[in-house]
């Protein structure tokens, strides 16, 4: 599919239809999961009562921001090796969306934390490994955006950004390891959706899978946000391609005059 989309013209054709579709379905799914999450499913007092409903935005965004950084790095890699211009356009578009979802994950998590961790929870944020690794991820996005913004020409921005994104990705695991070592105790939920992760020190009762009532909404929400994100990214990519074209036209006119 990507090889098919590698051609900008085909991409423009594809995205023209893809964007509205992704938008519609994504909005539907997100709305559905939110509706169920906020109104239908019973609040889980153990998880902070009604506040835990933030989960239905929080967890999907958490998964997404990680996935988006990976996507950024992959796109950069593709551009670096095969010089597919479209891959760079994609990388450029992914960055802000990824940063946005990272922030969303943090905010919703904080909202959740309000009750889940009692008052003064913000003290805990800086003490929690999972949270800090999200914070670091946010700064990886930030550095990428800043670097691109500082470069004068597209070519340079693309190359510099690609280098940074790639070394950033191979650093993510190390950062994760270090942050986990820094705080072995996390008040944060273990990865309970899939029963893995969380570390051996997590008590058994936390390890059992999540209540399917929530899980279902989570997955709907995740799918929905995924579609929304891709719609946004496609839009940014289109905008970028248009601006590139207009630049060329302008340049051509200058050549003439």
């Amino acid at each position, binding site marked *: 599919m990507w090889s098919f989309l590698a051609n900008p013209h085909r991409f423009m054709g594809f995205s023209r239809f893809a964007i509205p579709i992704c938008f519609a379905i994504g909005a539907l799914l997100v709305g559905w999961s939110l509706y169920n999450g906020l109104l239908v499913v019973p609040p889980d007092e153990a998880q902070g009562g009604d506040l835990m409903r933030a989960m239905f935005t929080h967890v999907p965004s958490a998964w997404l921001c990680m996935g988006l950084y990976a996507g950024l790095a992959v796109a950069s890699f593709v551009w670096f090796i095969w010089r597919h211009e479209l891959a760079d356009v994609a990388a450029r578009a992914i960055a802000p969306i990824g940063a946005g979802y990272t922030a969303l994950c943090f905010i919703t998590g904080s909202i959740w934390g309000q009750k889940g961790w009692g008052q003064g929870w913000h003290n805990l944020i800086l003490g929690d490994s999972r949270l800090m690794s999200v914070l670091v991820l946010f700064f990886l996005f930030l550095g990428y955006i800043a670097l691109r913004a500082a470069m004068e*020409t597209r070519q340079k921005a693309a190359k510099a950004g690609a280098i940074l994104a790639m070394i950033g990705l191979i650093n993510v695991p190390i950062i994760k390891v270090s942050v986990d070592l820094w705080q072995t105790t996390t008040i944060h939920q273990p990865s309970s959706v899939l029963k893995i992760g969380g570390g051996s020190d997590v008590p058994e009762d936390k390890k059992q899978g999540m209540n399917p009532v929530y899980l279902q909404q989570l997955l709907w929400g995740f799918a929905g946000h995924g579609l929304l994100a891709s719609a946004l990214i496609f839009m940014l990519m289109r905008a970028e391609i248009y601006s590139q074209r207009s*630049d*060329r036209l*302008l*340049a051509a006119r*200058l*050549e003439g005059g």
Partner: protein
Amino acid sequence: MSGEVLIEAQAVGAMRGERLLFRNLDLEVRAGETVLLRGANGSGKTTLLRQLAGLSEVATGVISRSAAQHWLGHTNGLKAHETPRTHLRHWARVWGSDVDIDGVLERMAMTRPADVPCRMLSAGQKRRTALGRLLLVERPLWLLDEPFNALDAAGRDLLAGMIEAHCDLSGAVIAALHGDTPVAASREVVL
């Protein structure tokens, strides 16, 4: 006389920003030739030279290099704290040459300010120091960007002599120049 080919550019083109500087440019330089790049300010001489030197990528076309090169750009490549002597000694070491530095300094008429930090040298003295690098190791192809800038009359004759001597020893020179020049060009390329 037509020596072997030292560098060959086929259908080379250059983009800057969104603008096209030149395209489909073919250039073949053989040993013994002195090729002058001519053209108005901003026509792309420096860009082409940097492409030939492998410093910036070609937008289109291919360049095949078959000989070692000396590069001398608009900037001299001197460090503020270096003296001409330490500068030349440094690059001699890097390039693995055991040439006599004092000899080079004398040839460039730089013995007097040989130990003055480059930050304090006059424009022409900086240029002379940079030109001294050409004498450190023997490299067939010289790529020079406006090499006569800031040189006084003596300096111009000196450089012209160096270039001719180099070409006689089956070397070649590609130089970007403005105005009239003291060197006999075997060919001129206008951008």
